[in-house]
Every structure is written in structure tokens, then in C-alpha cells.
């Protein structure tokens, strides 16, 4: 199950976050997060519900504004970026949403075609179709091309959501709980897909989860978000075998109890 990734370039950071703080009204969610993502790496962020994992990647993709600190993505500081530059940067970031966020009113094909047509100019219909077929094949759902999102299962929706972000050939993938609410077999499929995406498209990824099986299968490095800060950074084994912090152990034991 353990990952073996030779593609990581430790001399090249694609995301670099320093002292990131974010509060909603008086409620501090992130209290000074420091983290780097290296090129070609899968970084897993673990944490309990409500610790601000989604908030973190929403800040990285510019959906939320940071209160304090610096967030550097692909060499650009995004805390004070213009909307035009932000949009340009967003094309290089794929965001897989917690509940897939497929466009309900469009078929699977239209879901994929929509971002492609808007951002890649002068594509012939043939090229568009080729792109769509290639991506659907990559996520293993070629047969779903004409279905509506409402006709798909949770796991299939996740795959189409991932396909929709891949179609613009992003350099960074952000996965928000890719395995939440899926059965264990489908979880393994999604884990494999995440690894395949990394190998095939040479992306760097932040994977947010509280599923330790997913963390173990996909993570080159694991960090734990506790009380607004990152703690216990290292490989999966480092974090869970060598730390005797009570919180971490409880997290581990609970996950593997079933």
C-alpha cells in the first residue's frame, strides 16, 4: 500500500504558506499555518471536522481571503493579487470539491466541455471531443458521458469532478475530502485515481481528509491540523508510529477500530 514517489523535486516549491491566519468574526480558525508543497508531491492534511481544512484550500484558490500571513502559489503572492491575475492562476489549480459540485443542469459531457470551451480558444469540435474522451478514460468513466449528474453515484460524481478540473491541465490539485461518504472499495479506487493523476499529469496535490486509509495510500507527506496550526509533519509512519500525542493516537485508533 505504501507509496513510492520518485517524481518529487524538493528544490522547487509550488505552494509556500507562512503564518497564515483566518478568523470568522471572533472565531479564529487558522492561527498561523506554515507549510510548503513541493513539486510532484502529494501532501495530506489531516484534521478533525471543523478544524479549518476546507478554509485552508479555499484560501489557496482565492475563494476566501487571508487575514494575515503570506500565501505563495506558483511564484505568485495571492493575498493581494488582482482578480485578473487570480483568474489566470486559477486555471493552473484544480479544485475537487467535498461534494463534487457538478453543474446539475448539464450532462457529464457539458460539465467537461464548459470550462474547456471558455478557456481554450479555437478548439474544433473534434478536439473538444477528443479531450473529453481522453479525460473520461483517465478517470475510468467513459460510459457516463451522456448522463446527468443526478444519475451518478457519489463515487462517480467525485471522478467526474476530478475529470472536470483535469481537463484544463492543472499543475496543482486540491482535493477536499475525496473519499468522504464512499464505501471502502470505492475509497480505494479514488485513492488509486489520485495517485494515477499524479503520475500521469505530473501534478502536485494537497489532499484533505480524515480518512487514514486514504492518507496512507496517497500521501508522500502527512501533516496534522490541530487547533489552527500544523503539527506532526512527516511520512504517515512518522506521524502515527512515532508520536505519542494523545490526540494523534486517538485519531489513529478511532480510524482503524472498524
Amino acid at each position, binding site marked *: 500500500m505504501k507509496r513510492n514517489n520518485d517524481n518529487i523535486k524538493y528544490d522547487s516549491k509550488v505552494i509556500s504558506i507562512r503564518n497564515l491566519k483566518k478568523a470568522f468574526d471572533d472565531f479564529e480558525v487558522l492561527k498561523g499555518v506554515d507549510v510548503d508543497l513541493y513539486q510532484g508531491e502529494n501532501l495530506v492534511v489531516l484534521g478533525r471536522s471543523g478544524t479549518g481544512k476546507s478554509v485552508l484550500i*479555499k484560501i489557496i*484558490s*482565492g*475563494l476566501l481571503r487571508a487575514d494575515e500571513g503570506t500565501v505563495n502559489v506558483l511564484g505568485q503572492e495571492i493575498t493581494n493579487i488582482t482578480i485578473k491575475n487570480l*483568474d*489566470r492562476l*486559477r*486555471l493552473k*489549480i484544480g*479544485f475537487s*470539491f*467535498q*461534494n463534487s*459540485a*457538478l*453543474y*446539475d*443542469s448539464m450532462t457529464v459531457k457539458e460539465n467537461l466541455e464548459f*470550462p474547456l470551451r*471558455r*478557456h481554450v480558444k479555437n478548439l474544433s469540435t473534434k478536439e473538444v471531443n477528443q479531450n473529453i474522451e481522453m479525460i473520461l478514460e483517465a478517470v475510468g468513466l467513459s460510459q457516463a458521458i451522456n448522463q446527468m449528474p443526478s444519475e451518478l453515484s457519489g463515487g462517480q460524481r467525485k471522478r467526474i469532478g476530478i475529470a*472536470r*478540473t483535469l481537463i*484544463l491541465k492543472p499543475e496543482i490539485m486540491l482535493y477536499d475530502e475525496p473519499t468522504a461518504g464512499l464505501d471502502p472499495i470505492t475509497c480505494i479506487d479514488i485513492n488509486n485515481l489520485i495517485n494515477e493523476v499524479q503520475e500521469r499529469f505530473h501534478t502536485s496535490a494537497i489532499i484533505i481528509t480524515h480518512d487514514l486509509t486514504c492518507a496512507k495510500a496517497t500521501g508522500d507527506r502527512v501533516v496534522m491540523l490541530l487547533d489552527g496550526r500544523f503539527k506532526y509533519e512527516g511520512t504517515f509512519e512518522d506521524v502515527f508510529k512515532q508520536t505519542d500525542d494523545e490526540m494523534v493516537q486517538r485519531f489513529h485508533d478511532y480510524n482503524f477500530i472498524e
Partner: protein
Amino acid sequence: MKEKTKSKFFLSKKIDKVFIKLNDIWLFVFRFFKEVFVPPYEFKEIVNQCFELGVRSLPLISLTGFIIGIVFTNQSRPSLESFGATSWLPALMSIAIIRAMAPLVTALIASGRVASKIGAEIGSMKVSEQIEALEVSAINPFKYLVVSRIVATTLMVPALTLYTALVALLGAFVNVYQFEGTSFTSFFVQVFEAITFLDVFSSVIKSFIFGFTIGVVGCYKGYTSSRGTEGVGKAANTSVVTAMFLIFIEELLSLQIINALRIVD
């Protein structure tokens, strides 16, 4: 601690909330005007919405307009009969339908059908993170969803109003023909003699305002709907209520203005 929370509010918590809300809506409208004239234009989506919100309303509007024309004419006849003045029916219907009924009935039907549809649609997109999905794929969701729908309702409600007026007049004609035997040409000659340019013009302008209101309310309620599926239902429901309420207020205001203009005329 208690004092701190108190000093946060300007008047009382409730009144402050109303002002904050009004300010929010104002900013929403302001943002619409800021974005509507700036390229890229969402022509395709506007046409799409004109079809969805306008053309798809035709069956309901045709039925309602026609029946209202018949019923209104029929119910007005006895009062005119007592003066022996049933020959005035075409003129009376013409004024009633074009000045008042067509704009109001169309706007109310559109509130029920269109504002709720917009509220529910945008609300569910908001709740299921689809709006954020647009945003992260570098598509301006305000422009794509909101501007296109407000433009569509602003254009389609006046068009539908003219159509309702026509259908209602046809209903009136059917009734008048049945009882008084007035011919088609003679009916419509009387209809057009009874109305002035100001009547048609003010109705069309009024409908633009109604259409704009319906679009803004539906979009605002949907776009600001709270998380959770109940937020969607609430967005749809309050869209209808708010739109209707605003339309009645606008109707009253425009009545005053048009009457003032009539006197100047």
C-alpha cells in the same frame, strides 16, 4: 461583555438588520450595473435565460391573459348596461387592460414562476458549491448567473406584458363578439382610439422596472441563501413574496407619477 455586544448596534438589533439588508441589496444592484456593461458579455447565457424565463412562460400567460380578458369583460357588462353604454366596452377594456392589468398580471405571474425558479436555481447552486466551482474555474459567477438572469427578466417581462395585453384583448373581443356582435376590425379600432401613446409607453416602462425587480430579487435571494437544503426552499419562497410586495409598491408609485404626467399632458 454585555455592554460590548450592545455598543455594536446602532439602533436596535432588528432595525440594524433591516438597514444592513437594504445596504446589501443596494450593493448587489450596484454590482449588477458595474458588471453588465463590461466585457466579456454572456450573450449565449442571456439568450438561454430569455428562452427559459420568457418563452417558457408563454403557455401560462396565454391562458391567464385570455381568461382574464373574457371574465373582466363579462363582469363589467352589467354596470355599463344599466347606463345603456355597452358600446363603450371595447374602450373600457382597452384602458383597463393596457394601463393596469397587463403589466400587473404579467409581473405577478412572473414573480410566481420566474423569481422562484431563479431563487431556487441559484440557491441550490450556492448550497452545493457550484458557484464556488465556477469561481475556481475562473468564470465570474456573478456575471454568468446573475447578470444574465437580470438582463433576461428585464427584457422579457415587458415583451410578455405586450403579449398578455394582446391575448387579454382577444379574450375581451371574444366576449364582446358573443354578446354584442361587434366585428373584429371595429373592436380593435375602438381599442386603439381609446389609448394614447403615454398609456403604452408608461406600461412598457413600468414592465421594465417590474422585470428588473423580479430578476434582482430572485438572484439576490438565491445568491445569499444560507447553507443547507432548507436554504434553497426559503430562497425560492421569499423570492416570490418579496418580488410581489415590491411590485405592488412600485405599481402604486408609478400610478402617482403617471397621473401627474397625464395632467401635464
